[in-house]
């Protein structure tokens, strides 16, 4: 029984990742591609980790799996945020059909010159 659940989870997780990859290829602009990746990373990983935990029910596996999930959820959005932010500043062309872009109108978007934090 368990092997069926595990297999299902594994396949589902990897399929999510595949869909994310297809999304990266297919979706029309960088923001939407980022959508695909962020979600795939977490969801796919969560499903597959579930499979691992179920198949290897040990504390250390559970803890490490949880760590993977938490870290993915915590860090992936920050990465995408950074890229999205800079992409927007670069005026990366957006796909057609945007209803609005309120960030464009944000007065503070152009930051002070000469500021060096890196």
């Amino acid at each position, binding site marked *: 029984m368990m092997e069926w659940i595990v*297999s299902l989870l594994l396949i589902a997780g*990897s399929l999510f990742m595949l869909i994310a*990859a297809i999304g990266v290829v297919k979706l029309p602009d*960088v923001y939407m591609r980022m959508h695909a990746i962020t979600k795939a990373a977490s969801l796919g990983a969560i499903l*597959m980790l579930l499979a691992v935990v179920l198949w290897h029910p040990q504390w250390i596996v559970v803890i490490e799996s949880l760590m993977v999930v938490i870290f*993915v959820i915590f860090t992936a959005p920050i990465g995408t945020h950074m890229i999205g932010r800079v992409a927007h500043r*670069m005026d990366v062309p957006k796909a057609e059909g945007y209803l609005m872009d309120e960030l464009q109108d944000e007065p503070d978007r152009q930051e002070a010159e000469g500021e060096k934090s890196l």
Partner: protein
Amino acid sequence: MEGFPILNLAVNLSFASLTISLFAGLYRLLTGPTLPDRMVVMDLIASLVIGLILTYIMLTGQTVFLNVAVVIALLVFMGNIAFAKYLKRRIE
């Protein structure tokens, strides 16, 4: 994993979809068109590597590989930050 054909199948399917995904990522890397487009590929590949690691764990039963996944999950975003900072500097 021995003695569980369905699991074997699942592992192989997982490998298949993940490797196809890898090439999808490569495609985006090569075609771009913009730099942020290429940058997101790194994230995708990192996720796929986590997937591959988990699949390898299922294949071999070696849960120590989880450690690798933890590190990737924890730190890959720093690459994004670095790229972002680089691009930011370029537009300034």
